[in-house]
C-alpha cells in the first residue's frame, strides 16, 4: 500500500500528527499496535498544568486537537497560578475513558486518514530517504514521509522489585526490532526511565482523613473555540494526603528491593518525576511528602496516587500504601512500576523535527526524550505540519522561543539535547511574560490559518478579537476619568478623596490596585468586552514596562537569529575554537548564531570566532 505520510504510534503525538497531515490533504495511515489504545493516558489522568496548559492552548491556536478533546472530557478544571497573571495555566483531570474515545471519533471523521493495527519492525530507507515501513507481520507500507511517535515502546522493560518484564505500558507489546533498525541507520540511542504510581480502589479509601481539592467555580476552556457549558458544581474532587514516618521507614528498610536501587535500572530518570524512594533518599530531612489522589474516570473506580511512583516489589508497595493516612485499608488495583525505554538523541534532529540522518523521517514525543502528553502532542502537531510542508516544498514551520512554549521545547531538545525525560517548565521560557495562556491565539492562530489547519470561520474569530482589543484600548485612551465612569463604591474602596480627572481611563488602569472590570461594568463605555479581552488588555496596560523589557531581550535574540550559519559550514576550518565547542557544533549544526550560543559547552568566545569566520568566508562581497 502507498500513502503520502505514515504515522507510527497512536499516542498523543501520533494523533496530532495524523490529524494535521490528513487535514492538510495528505493520504495518511496511522499504524498502532492496538486501536483501543489510541490517545491512551497510561500515567496521570490529567491534561495541562503549569506551562503544559499553555502548550495545550498553543496546540489549539495552531489547529490541533488536544484542547478541543480535553474540553469535552474533563471531570475537573482549575486555573493554576490564577493570581500570577504571567504564568496562569489550566489543569484538567481528564477522563481516561472519554478522552481517548472522543479523540478516536475525531480521527475517524478524517476522510484522508486510515487507521491500521500493527507492530512496526523496521523502517525502509532508500538512499538515505524514507521509503516506507515494514511491520512485524511482514507487511510493507510505502510512503513519502514517515512520522515516528512510538512513545516508550522502544525496547521497553517494566520493572517491579526484581521482576523485569519486556513490555510497554498497560502490558502492551514492546517494539524490540525498531530500536535495532535505528541503531543500524546511525542513530544514537538514549536509555531513559520513568514510572507510574499505584491505582487504588476508590471505595477502599477513607476520605475523612484526606483533604479535598475542588475544581474552580469559574468556567474555563482550553480551546479558543469551546463555549464551556459544564456544570462547575458537579466536578470530581481530588484529594491530598501525605507520607508518614512509617512510610519512610518501610521505604528505607526495603530500599535494596527497589529496582532503582538494586542496579536493575540502567536508564536515566527524570528529576521532574522522581520515584518516592528517590525523594526519600535525596531529601532525607523532609518529614513528609505531599501526595495527590486523583480520579481517573467517572466510569470506573481507580484513583491515581500521584507522587507515589515506585519500583518496589508488590508486598512492599502494599505496606507503603497502607501507611498513608486515609489509605489504611486501601486496595491496590494496579501496582506502581518503573519503565525503561530507548529514545533517540534529539541532537540528531532538525528544528523541524525531521531527522538529520534520514530525509523525510520525522519523530515526535517520548521517542525524542520528552515526558508528558502535552509535550508529545505539540511535537506531533509540528512533525505533522512539517512533513506536509516538506512534501509540498515549503519552508519548515519553526516556532521561535519568543513565540511559543512549543518553540522553547523543540529548541531546547534539538539544541541542548537531554539526558533525562524532558519536561516543560515556565522557568525554561526566558520570555514567558509574552507566552501566556490568554494570548496563545494572538500569537499563533494566524500561523495555523496560513498553514491550513485553521478554517476561515475560526480565523475570523481571531480578527474580531483583535479588533475588539484595539477598540477597547482606543476607548480607554480617549476617555478621561470622571464621576460618571468611575463608580463611587470603587473610589471609596480605594480611599481616593478626590479624583484627578486629568487622567484617561487607560492611565487610571495602570495602577495595580485598579481592576478594569471594576469600572468597565458601569462606565460610559458599553459593556461588550469578553473576560478574555479584558484580561489581555489589562495585562498590556499594567505590565507595559515589563513587556517592553521583554521585547528588548527578544530583539537581542532575534538579531542573532538573523545571523544564519550556512548548511555547508566546515567547523574544522575555524581556527582557535575550543575542541569541545567544535564537537558540539558539528553535532547540533545550529541554523544561526543565536541557536549556537545556546548550546551547552559553546562559550561566548567560540561564538565570536564563529561569527568572524562566517563574515570572512561567506560575506566576502558585502
Amino acid at each position, binding site marked *: 500500500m502507498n500513502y503520502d505520510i505514515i504515522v507510527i504510534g497512536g499516542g498523543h503525538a501520533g494523533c496530532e500528527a495524523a490529524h494535521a497531515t490528513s487535514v492538510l490533504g495528505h493520504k495518511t495511515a496511522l499504524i498502532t499496535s492496538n486501536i483501543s489504545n489510541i490517545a491512551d493516558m497510561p500515567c496521570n489522568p490529567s491534561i495541562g498544568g503549569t506551562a503544559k496548559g499553555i502548550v495545550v492552548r498553543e496546540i489549539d491556536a495552531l489547529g490541533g486537537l488536544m484542547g478541543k478533546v480535553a474540553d469535552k472530557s474533563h471531570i475537573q478544571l482549575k486555573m493554576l497560578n490564577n493570581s500570577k497573571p504571567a504564568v496562569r495555566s489550566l489543569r484538567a483531570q481528564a477522563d481516561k475513558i472519554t478522552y481517548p474515545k472522543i479523540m478516536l471519533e475525531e480521527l475517524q471523521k478524517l476522510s484522508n486518514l486510515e487507521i491500521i493495527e500493527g507492530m512496526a519492525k523496521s523502517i525502509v530507507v532508500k538512499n538515505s530517504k524514507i521509503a516506507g515501513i515494514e511491520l512485524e507481520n511482514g507487511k510493507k507500507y510505502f510512503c513519502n514521509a514517515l512520522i515516528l511517535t512510538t512513545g516508550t515502546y522502544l525496547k521497553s522493560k517494566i520493572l517491579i522489585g526484581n521482576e523485569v518484564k519486556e513490555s510497554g505500558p498497560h502490558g502492551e507489546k514492546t517494539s524490540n526490532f525498531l530500536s535495532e533498525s535505528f541503531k543500524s541507520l546511525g542513530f544514537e540511542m538514549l536509555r531513559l526511565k520513568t514510572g507510574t504510581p499505584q491505582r487504588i480502589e476508590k471505595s477502599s479509601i477513607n476520605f475523612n482523613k484526606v483533604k479535598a481539592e475542588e475544581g474552580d467555580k469559574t468556567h474555563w476552556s482550553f480551546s479558543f473555540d469551546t463555549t464551556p457549558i459544564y456544570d462547575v458544581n458537579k466536578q470530581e474532587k481530588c484529594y491530598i494526603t501525605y507520607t508518614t514516618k512509617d512510610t519512610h521507614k518501610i521505604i528505607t528498610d526495603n530500599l535494596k528491593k527497589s529496582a532503582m536501587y538494586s542496579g536493575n535500572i540502567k536508564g536515566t530518570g527524570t528529576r521532574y518525576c522522581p520515584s518516592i524512594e528517590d525523594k526519600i533518599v535525596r531529601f532525607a530531612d523532609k518529614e513528609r511528602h*505531599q501526595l495527590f489522589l486523583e480520579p481517573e474516570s467517572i466510569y470506573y473506580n481507580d484513583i491515581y496516587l500521584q507522587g507515589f511512583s515506585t519500583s518496589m516489589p508488590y508486598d512492599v508497595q502494599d505496606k507503603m500504601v497502607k501507611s498513608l493516612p486515609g489509605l489504611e485499608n486501601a486496595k491496590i488495583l494496579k501496582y506502581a512500576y518503573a519503565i525503561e525505554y530507548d529514545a533517540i538523541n534529539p541532537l540528531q534532529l532538525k528544528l523541524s523535527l525531521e531527522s538529520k540522518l534520514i530525509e523525510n523521517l520525522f519523530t515526535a514525543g517520548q521517542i525524542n526524550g520528552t515526558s508528558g502528553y502535552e509535550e508529545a502532542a505539540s511535537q506531533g502537531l509540528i512533525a505533522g505540519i512539517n512533513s506536509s510542508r516538506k512534501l509540498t516544498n515549503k519552508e519548515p514551520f519553526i516556532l521561535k522561543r519568543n513565540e511559543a512554549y512549543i518553540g522553547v521545547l523543540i529548541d531546547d531538545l534539538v539544541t541542548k539535547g537531554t539526558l533525562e525525560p524532558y519536561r516543560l517548565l515556565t522557568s525554561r521560557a526566558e520570555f514567558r*511574560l509574552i507566552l501566556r495562556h490568554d494570548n496563545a491565539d494572538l500569537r499563533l492562530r494566524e500561523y495555523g490559518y496560513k498553514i491550513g489547519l485553521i478554517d476561515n470561520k475560526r480565523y475570523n474569530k481571531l480578527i474580531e478579537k483583535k479588533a475588539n482589543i484595539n477598540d477597547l484600548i482606543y476607548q480607554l485612551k480617549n476617555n478621561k476619568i470622571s464621576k460618571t465612569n468611575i463608580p463611587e463604591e470603587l473610589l471609596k474602596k480605594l480611599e481616593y478623596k478626590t479624583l484627578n480627572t486629568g487622567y484617561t481611563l487607560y492611565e487610571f488602569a495602570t495602577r495595580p490596585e485598579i481592576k478594569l472590570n471594576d469600572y468597565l461594568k458601569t462606565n460610559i463605555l458599553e459593556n461588550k468586552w469578553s473576560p478574555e479581552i479584558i484580561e489581555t488588555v489589562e495585562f498590556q496596560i499594567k505590565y507595559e514596562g515589563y513587556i517592553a523589557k521583554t521585547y528588548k531581550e527578544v530583539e537581542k535574540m532575534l538579531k542573532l537569529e538573523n545571523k544564519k550559519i550556512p548548511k555547508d559550514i566546515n567547523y574544522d576550518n575555524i581556527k582557535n575554537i575550543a575542541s569541545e565547542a567544535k564537537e558540539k557544533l558539528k553535532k547540533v549544526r545550529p541554523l544561526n548564531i543565536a541557536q549556537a550560543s545556546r548550546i551547552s559547552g559553546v562559550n561566548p568566545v567560540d561564538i565570536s570566532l564563529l561569527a568572524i569566520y562566517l563574515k570572512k568566508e561567506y560575506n566576502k562581497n558585502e
Partner: protein
Amino acid sequence: MDSTICAVSTALGNGAISIIRCSGAEAIKIVNSVFLGKNLEQVPSHTIHYGFITYQNEKVDEVLVSIMRSPKTFTTEDIVEINSHGGIATTNKILEVLLASGCILAEAGEFTKRAFLNGRIDLLEAEAVGDLIVSETESSRKLAINQITGSLSNKINNIRQKLISLQANIEVNIDYPEYDDVLVITEDILKPTLINIIEELQHLLIDSKNGKIIKNGIDVAIIGQPNVGKSSILNDLLEENKAIVTNIPGTTRDIVEGKIFLNGIILNIVDTAGLRLTNDQVEKIGVEKSKDISKTADLIIYVIDNTTEKISVDLQNLQNLGDKPVIVFINKDDIKTKLDINKLKDYQVIFGNTINEFGLEKLKTKIIEIFNLEKIETKDFSYLSSARQVSLVSKALMVIEESLNNLNMGISIDLISIDLQNCYELLGEIIGETYKEDLLDELFSKFCLGK
C-alpha cells in the same frame, strides 16, 4: 542595528589630551546632542570642529571633535572622536555624558571586533587579527576576574546566591503551585531580602568610591573670590611655583593642577579662576570652568581673605556647593581679622597664611580626617575597579530598587522574578558567569517535587 559604543581611547591619566571615541549608527547624533558648536549632523565627513561638550546646559569641557562617516572609518560605522583636556575627572565626565545620552560602554577590543565583523580588515589580515581578538577578549576576561579576586567576588557571589535561592523558590511556587509543603515566597518574605540586597549593593558602590580614591586619588578644587590667595595655597601645598601668583585679581585664568601624596593617597589639586562676574572673555571661560570643576571635585577648599568684611558673596558661593565636603580656609590670618567668623560656624574652618605657611599642616590633617585616609587599606583592598563594573552594579541596584518599588505597588511576584533574574545576570556579567542552567540545578537540588 548595532548599538553605538564609546570608550576612552587614550590611556587614562594626566596626558595633555585624551580621546573619547564613539562608533555606531547613532554616534554623530548622540555626540551632536551634547555638543555646543556646529550642527555635527550636517558637517562633511573627515572634518574637525571646535566646541564644548555640555550636559544639562552646563559645559563639561572645551573640545575638538572629529567626524568620520561610514564606511571609510576604522569600524566602517560612523565614528566620532572627541579630543578633550586630559585629566581623569574631565575624561570620565565626558564618558558619563555619552553613556547617559545613549551610548553603550565598549567592551575590551570591541572597536577592533567591529572593524573585523564589518569587513573593514581584509581577508589576508583577517586571520592574524582573529588571533588578536581572541587574546584580547580572553586576557581581558581573565584580567577582569583576577582583578576581583577575594572579598569583592565573594561579595558579589553572596548577593547572587541570595538572588538565585529566592528565584529558585519563586520558580518552584510558579511551576508547582499545588504543593503546599514548599515555602511560598510572599511579599513579606521578599521585601526584607530585597532591602538587604539593596544595602549590600550600595556598600559595594561606596567601597568602589574608596577604590576610586586609591586608584585615582582625591580631586581637590581650590576656589574662592579673586585675589584671596588660592594660587599661593596651591603653590605652598605643591611646594613649587606652578601657578602664576600676582596681586592682580584674575591672574589665574585657566586651571592649574598639581599632585601631592597624603598618606599614600594622591591629591589632585586644582587651582581655579576666582569666582566673580567678569567681562573678559578668556577669564569668563575660566570662571565657568571653575564652577564646573567644583562640581566634579571630591573636596573643595574654599578660601576667604581674613580682611574681607562682607562675606555674603562667599556664603552664597558656599551654599551653591551643596553637600560636597568643604574646608573653609581663612587666609592671611597674619593681618587683623575683619570678618565675622560666626557666620561660618556651620563649616569646618581653618586659619592660616601663605607667608609663613601656617595652617597648611592643619589643612592636610583635616583632609585625612574627612576621607578617613588613616583607615583606608591600600593593600589587599578590593573594589569595583572599572567603569564597567561600577555601571553594572549601579544598574543592578537600580533594577532591585525598582522591583522593591513595584512590589510595594502591588505587582505580583511572577513579574518581580523578572527583575531578580535581570539583577542576577547583571551581577553575573561582572564575574563572567551565566544564568539559566544553574537555576534549574538549584531548583531541583533544593526542592522535592514531581508526581
